[in-house]
């Protein structure tokens, strides 16, 4: 059984991002980049399937600039067997990524494709779903548990206010929720081994897909600055402020 895991290179979750002065986007100069946290969970899940003897090959894929090789190497260190970079300098968006991955899937024929449920940069939560539609595959989104069962996947989904369990036939698309697993750290021996694992590069054009953006960002605004808190001296003053300024009690 082959598992494909698309991973995205995003701004490190620890970085406090700044909006560019002209409001066209987030300033990425000298900003630390990392594997999208939900994609880390996807890799971990795929590697665990291999360790459990259920999967035979894990392929990590990124769509983006050559810099994505860094994140693919991380995935190889975490246990992926090989990696593919679909290289493009376009500002890739969910639809373009989904199309490129669909073209790759036509060659790879993976049995399970595991996406992160969303990437922390665009927060789109669309790529897995679009890919499933393009590839005509069933999808188990926002998964907090995935168990192979009788040639199918039993998927527990995190839904508003509860859990839903579904069964999907293979080949299938999974998108990972936060609670699916806790990703491991990359060990140094594995990082060194990863340097020798295959990482193939192809262009979007090689695959015959157009990944040009279809959505134009008009403007990006930073969130409004929170006003500094005030210290009150007495309980009466607090009650007064809650009643008359914040108007949260009557």
């Amino acid at each position, binding site marked *: 059984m082959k598992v494909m895991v698309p991973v995205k290179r995003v701004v490190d979750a620890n970085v406090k991002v700044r909006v560019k002065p002209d409001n066209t986007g987030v300033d990425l100069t000298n900003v*630390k980049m*990392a594997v999208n946290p939900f994609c880390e969970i996807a890799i971990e899940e795929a590697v665990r399937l291999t360790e459990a003897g259920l999967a035979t090959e894990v392929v990590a894929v990124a769509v983006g600039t050559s810099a994505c090789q860094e994140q693919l190497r991380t995935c190889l260190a975490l246990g992926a067997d090989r990696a593919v970079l679909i290289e493009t300098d376009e500002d890739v968006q969910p639809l373009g990524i989904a199309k490129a991955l669909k073209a790759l899937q036509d060659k790879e024929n993976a049995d399970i494709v595991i996406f992160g449920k969303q990437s922390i940069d665009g927060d789109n939560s669309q790529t897995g779903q679009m890919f499933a539609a393009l590839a005509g595959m069933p999808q188990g989104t926002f998964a907090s548990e995935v168990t192979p069962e009788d040639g199918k996947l039993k998927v527990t989904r995190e839904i508003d206010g509860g859990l839903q369990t579904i069964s999907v036939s293979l080949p299938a698309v999974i998108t990972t929720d936060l609670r699916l697993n806790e990703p491991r750290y990359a*060990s*140094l021996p594995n990082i060194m081994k990863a340097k020798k694992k295959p990482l193939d590069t192809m262009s979007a054009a090689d695959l015959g897909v157009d990944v040009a953006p279809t959505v134009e960002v008009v403007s990006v605004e930073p969130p409004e600055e929170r006003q500094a808190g005030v210290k009150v001296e007495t309980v009466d003053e607090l009650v007064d402020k809650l009643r008359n300024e914040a108007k949260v009690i009557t």
Partner: protein
Amino acid sequence: MLEALDELFSPGCVTRAADDLAHWGRDWTTAYKAAPSAVVFPKSIHEVVALVRWAGSHGVALVPSGGRTGLSGGAVANHGEVVVSFDRMNAISDFRPADRLVTCQAGVVTANLQGFATEQGLSYPVDFASSGSSQIGGNIATNAGGIKVIRYGLTRDWVAGLTVVSGSGEILECNQGLIKNATGYDLRHLFVGSEGTLGFIVEAQMRLALAPPPQRVMVLGVPRFADILEVLSAMQARLVLSAFEFFADQALAKVMAHRDLQSPLSARVAFYALIEFDDDALEEATAVFEHCVASGWVVDAVLSQSDTQAGQLWQLREAISESIAPFTPYKNDISVCIGDMPGFLDAVEMLVAREYPDFEVCWYGHIGDGNLHLNILKPESMDTQAFYARCHEISPKVFQAVAEKNGSISAEHGVGLLKRDFLGFSRSPAEIGVMRGLKGVLDPHGIMNPGKLL
């Protein structure tokens, strides 16, 4: 007599409520019962001066109080003292970019100074797990160290100027930000590490560092204690380290249980070293790792792949204090020169195995600075007082081993109440005599934190 406090301070800045006395009367130590007679919150230097003059003429003992994260009982008030809290003197009042100097009141929380520095594109590099609560005044009064000492030094190294109200009620402005100032005794350094026994630190000029380059964190598994030092010297021979910390597996187990974290390595190892270094030294660090494996010192290691992961790996070290706190730890904070470490480690390990066979022992520390935290955990069934009494009996033996290496019985936590009776293991009678003499000059009425340190 304490009614006079109401005249010295504005309303709401004096409290005698039982809850407040219990809260502000103690620090992070749990061995002492808080029993202050009042807590005051000055808002200006002049209020501090007026308080000190009044206390001097009435013989009222004062306990300077910062973030109360101290680990030696320095900020404990257990004899009817008046606690003087700097919680309301917490303004950052000036920044001079050309000198990279920040002027802050004593009550500025360490993390706020760090945050301010980051906003200026600079850094305040002194850091430890308590920086979210500790105050600059408290850091200076204890000469706090922390996790980046190996590269950036101690709090002392970043104090460029101090405004102090001495125990005699005088305002002393010690070295106002100058780099060079060869005009006699540098009184500033007398107050660094003085544990509130000479006067109140009311304001400080802190120097900032340049922002650090991107960092990497590596956690290495080291089966034998002594090999940690081999790893340290191998690393230091080839790269500039920003941190070199170590912890034993017992400490890791407590953190994993407390914070619900996974083990960093695929198999558990007796000891771990956590190192941080510049990202561009990664190749060197990897080469040293290979050398350490080939030498049999290290069995495995993980490397942070993002700043987020670096933070997660740091948690394994930084959450130790907090995770062992429920076990009423008896803390030893000892140091020797790095060169003396190997023999010292053997001696202490044997001693601990012999003297504490029935207690759980938890080792960790800033081993790159020659600083070990040896924590003895209280068995659940044992009474706290009995436990402390037992530890107090064994401590002299540990301290004797420290003294034999000319080491320190308190590397960075201070002496306070907890180590006062053991000061003689690290300081000669002549030195202690001079310390008393200095205290007599700056605190003639003996009102500044009496019973602490000396």
